Structures are given as structure tokens and as C-alpha cells.
């Protein structure tokens, strides 16, 4: 059924991505690919992977942007994946019922066995979350690792999306954004988390946390402290230095 849930559960599972912390290492994208090429949407087909023009299906892609000018300019690494929107247009445009939003947790999924590969859902997504697998002839997308987060064969600590589990910087958080008391909801409030392209009015569930403001006013980047003097004058260290220094030694 490609109508949106009539009585959606208050639970809205999603991600919070911290743009202040993300270092752009692409580990989330790689681990996403690694997990999902054996998961719900397996395989995430690559074409010509070792050639000069490789192409393939990825659910998570890490961009880098520059914002601002000169000393005030910032480089911001920007992971982009499905935002599991509340008013997901990719669901309602689907003519077959393959694309749907789960009542119980708001995850947007594709039933590959019903997908005709018309690509209209990918056209309707402002965020480029859906990628067509030309080899299989169906659309594929982020499942929020539905085969991890509810997987009773995994340790509880591992029941998070692959991108969250692997992030070495702790820039990705998973939780219930429908519960105002959840850790992720509090993080969004504390850090002024925001929606991407709010003008599209499709209420993305995932939130992004902005880079924190710089601490120094003029925007200059300075080393924390210089190292101690290698040739101190006077005192015990000065005496040791003088004792050990030969004529040809570098000061």
C-alpha cells in the first residue's frame, strides 16, 4: 500500500548526523555497502568496479562542502542517506505498492518483488536517497539496517545501523526521534538540529547537527601551545643542556 500510514505510530526511528564531528572518512558509506550487499537489498551491484568508469549502488554517500569565505570559511563533510521522511513522496508516487512506509516505526522500505523499476520514486526524492540497480532492474534504498536493528541474533549493542556502528568519530546517532525524551531527540534540541531542504515540506525524520561555532573570534587557526624551549637558559635543565651539548650539536 503506497498511501502513507493512516495511523502512524509515535515511534520514528532515524539518524542524527553531527556535521561538527564528521571527519569525512567514508567509513559509514563503506560499512553500509558492506552490510547491505549481503542484507535486505543484496546485492548492491557494482558495474565495472575495477575499470576506469566504476559505478554501483550505494545507500550512503559522503560529500564535502565549503561554506563561507576566507578565515571564516569551513570545510564540512556531509554524509547523505535516506531521511525516512514522514510525508515521503517516494512512497505515494509508487504505482505498484512496492514502496511503503512502515506503520510501526516509520522506516521507508521497498519490496523488491513488487518493484517494476519505473524509477519515479527516485525522481520524487529531493535528497537522492534512492539508487536504481540496473542489473536487478529494481530500485534500492537505505533500510535503516532493518535486518540489524531488530536482529535478535546480534548483541544488543550491535543492533544499530551499520553506518552508526562503524563511525569512528561518533558523528552518527540512531534512535527514536518521535520520543522527545530519547537521547537523539535531546541531542537535536541541545544542538539545534535541523531538516535538510525544509522548503520541500516532506518532514524528514533524520536530523543534522550544525558545525559548532568557532571558539576564536577572528577565525584564525592557531596551534595550541608551542613546545618547550630545547635550550633553556639557567636552572637545572639549563645546566644539563650545557653539560650535554658538544661544540657541533644543533641547538
Amino acid at each position, binding site marked *: 500500500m503506497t498511501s502513507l500510514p493512516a495511523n502512524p505510530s509515535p515511534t520514528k526511528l532515524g539518524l542524527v548526523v553531527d556535521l561538527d564531528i564528521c571527519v569525512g572518512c567514508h567509513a559509514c558509506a563503506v560499512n553500509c555497502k558492506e552490510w547491505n550487499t549481503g542484507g535486505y537489498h543484496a546485492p548492491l551491484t557494482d558495474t565495472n568496479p575495477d575499470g576506469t568508469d566504476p559505478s554501483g549502488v550505494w545507500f550512503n554517500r559522503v560529500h564535502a562542502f565549503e561554506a563561507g569565505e576566507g578565515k571564516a570559511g*569551513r570545510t564540512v563533510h556531509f554524509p547523505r542517506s535516506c531521511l525516512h521522511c514522514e510525508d515521503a513522496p517516494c512512497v505515494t508516487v509508487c504505482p505498484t505498492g512496492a514502496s511503503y512506509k512502515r506503520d510501526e516505526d516509520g522506516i521507508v522500505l521497498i519490496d523488491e518483488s513488487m518493484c517494476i523499476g519505473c524509477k519515479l520514486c527516485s525522481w*520524487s526524492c529531493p535528497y537522492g536517497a534512492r539508487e536504481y540497480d540496473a542489473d536487478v532492474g529494481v530500485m534500492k534504498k537505505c533500510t535503516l539496517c532493518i535486518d540489524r536493528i531488530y536482529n535478535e541474533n546480534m548483541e544488543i549493542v550491535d543492533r544499530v545501523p551499520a553506518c552508526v556502528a562503524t563511525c569512528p568519530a561518533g558523528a552518527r546517532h540512531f534512535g527514536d526521534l518521535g520520543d522527545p525524551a530519547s537521547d537523539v531527540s535531546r541531542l537535536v534540541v541541545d544542538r539545534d538540529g535541523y531538516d535538510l531542504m525544509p522548503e520541500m515540506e516532506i518532514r524528514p525524520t533524520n536530523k543534522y547537527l550544525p558545525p559548532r561555532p568557532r571558539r576564536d573570534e577572528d577565525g584564525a587557526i592557531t596551534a595550541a601551545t608551542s613546545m618547550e624551549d630545547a635550550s633553556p637558559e639557567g636552572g637545572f635543565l639549563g645546566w644539563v643542556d650545557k653539560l650535554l651539548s658538544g661544540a657541533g650539536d644543533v641547538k
Partner: protein
Amino acid sequence: MNPAYSVIFFTTASGLGYGLLAFIGVFVSLGLLPADRWLGLWGLGVALAAITFGLLASTFHLGHPERAWRAVTQWRSSWLAREGVVALLTYVPAAVLGISWVFFEQISGGIALAALLVAVTSTITVYCTGMIYASIKAIPAWHQTAVPVNYVLLAAMTGAVWFLALLHIFDLPTVPVTVIAVVLLVFGLAAKMNYWRQNDDAPVTSTSGTATGLSELGDVRLLETPNTSANYLNKEMGFKVARKHAVKLRRIAIATGFVVPIIFVILAALASGISAVFFSLFAAIIMMIGIVTERWLFFAEARHVVNLYYGETTI
């Protein structure tokens, strides 16, 4: 957007077919056409062939054409499904009309009602086609009421010009349809030029700042793409060739799709016999070249907001 040939062929051929079908339906229901079976065979034959080949072509770009039947199930939410439902429904009264006309030369009474129904469902189908595109917010150029209006108008226009050629071939009265065709060609041209002007002057919908949420830091520009060679999004949504030649292609569309057909429709009205048939058929064929160009531009010129993640700064 990537202008897929199958979709261009589908929208132009089915537009022509449903337009022609609608004109035949209205004229039959008003009792303005003779019950000659050859007229029915050729008129409905051309219309239904254009529609059917168009619908088949639209399944060529599917990943799984064998599952296409599923595409009628979600009519509650999806304009594509609604289009499919009404497109298939149209075959029912069209078959009733066609069988009665071709085999029994009987097109009055209940059959006239079926003909009217054909005209109604044909129009709704083309409206649904337009709404498939108009419902996509992520492509601001399409997300406007002008899109379904233009689709219906251009379908009526192409249908009228082909209907006129049919009337010339069967040596039937052509004055009312000549007037209708010229009016629709003029309105079609005005609507299309208005669409282009509106999109050229359209205010910015989204920016790289709103796409990333970083606009408070200043101008936002792409530093690195995630992928070293083009991915699905770049190939499907990142099409840029048309914009380079847009002005020339628009001129070609205006000339061949509207201006030349107007001239030849009028020439056909002034001529008689075989030259009238030739002029009206020439108008119909050259118009299709213009309409295909117009449709190619409709897709190729439309900019998808996902490109804001791939280097564009305003859309």
C-alpha cells in the same frame, strides 16, 4: 532530467492518440460523423495504435515489464497508477464504439454515449500523465498547474490536427475542425512559451545552503563529490546537454510544432482534393517533430534539486 526516449515516445504518441480519440468521441456523440466503417477503422485504428504503442514503449524503460500489471493497484495515492487505470478503462468504451462502428456501422444511441465516455476518459488519462510530473516537488519546473494543463492542451492540439487530416482524407466537412485546430495550435504555442518564460524567470526554490543547512556559515559550494565517476543520480537527474542548446531547440519546437502546422492547416483549408490531404498530413507529421522536440526539452531542461549535492548552487 534524463530524457528517456521511451517516455518521450509514450507521452507524445499517447497524447496524439488520446487527443484524436477524444475528438472522434465528441464528434460521434454529437452525430457529426458518418457511420462509414472505413472512417471508424482508420480513425480509431490510428488513435488506438498510437496509444497502444505508446503504452508498450512506456514499459520498455521498466526494469521489470512483466510486473507492469501491478502499476494499476495504487490509484489511491499514485498519479502513475491512476493514469494506468484510466488508460486501460478507455479501451472498454473504445472497443464498444469500434466494434459497433466497424462491424455494424451503427454509431448512434447508446454507442454515442460510449463515444462521449471515450472522450472523457481520454482527457482524464492525459491529465493524469501531466500530474505524474506536476506532483514532483523535487523538480520545481514541473511542480506547477501549467504542466497538466499543457499536457491536455498539446494532446488536444495534436489530436485535432490529425483529426483534420482524417477528415480531409475522407473528404468530409473540415471548416469547424480547421478553426479548432488553428485555435489549439495558437493556444498551445502561447501556453508553451509561457511555460518556458515562467521557468526562465522562476524564483529560486532551493539552494546548496538549504540542501546542506549550512547557509548560516556563508555561501555553500561543493568541495568533493562522493563518487569518482558518474553514479545513478548523476546519469538520471544530472542531464545538462539540453540547456546548452535550449534556445535553438525551442526555436525548432516553435517552428515545426506550431507555426508551420498553422500555415499548412490553413493551406489545406484553401486547397482541395489531393493537395488538401497532402497539406493536412504534412501539418500533422511536421507537428510531431516539433512536439517530440518540445517533450525532449521538457525532460532535459528540468533541473532536479538533488543536483545541489553535486555542484549546483541554486535550483
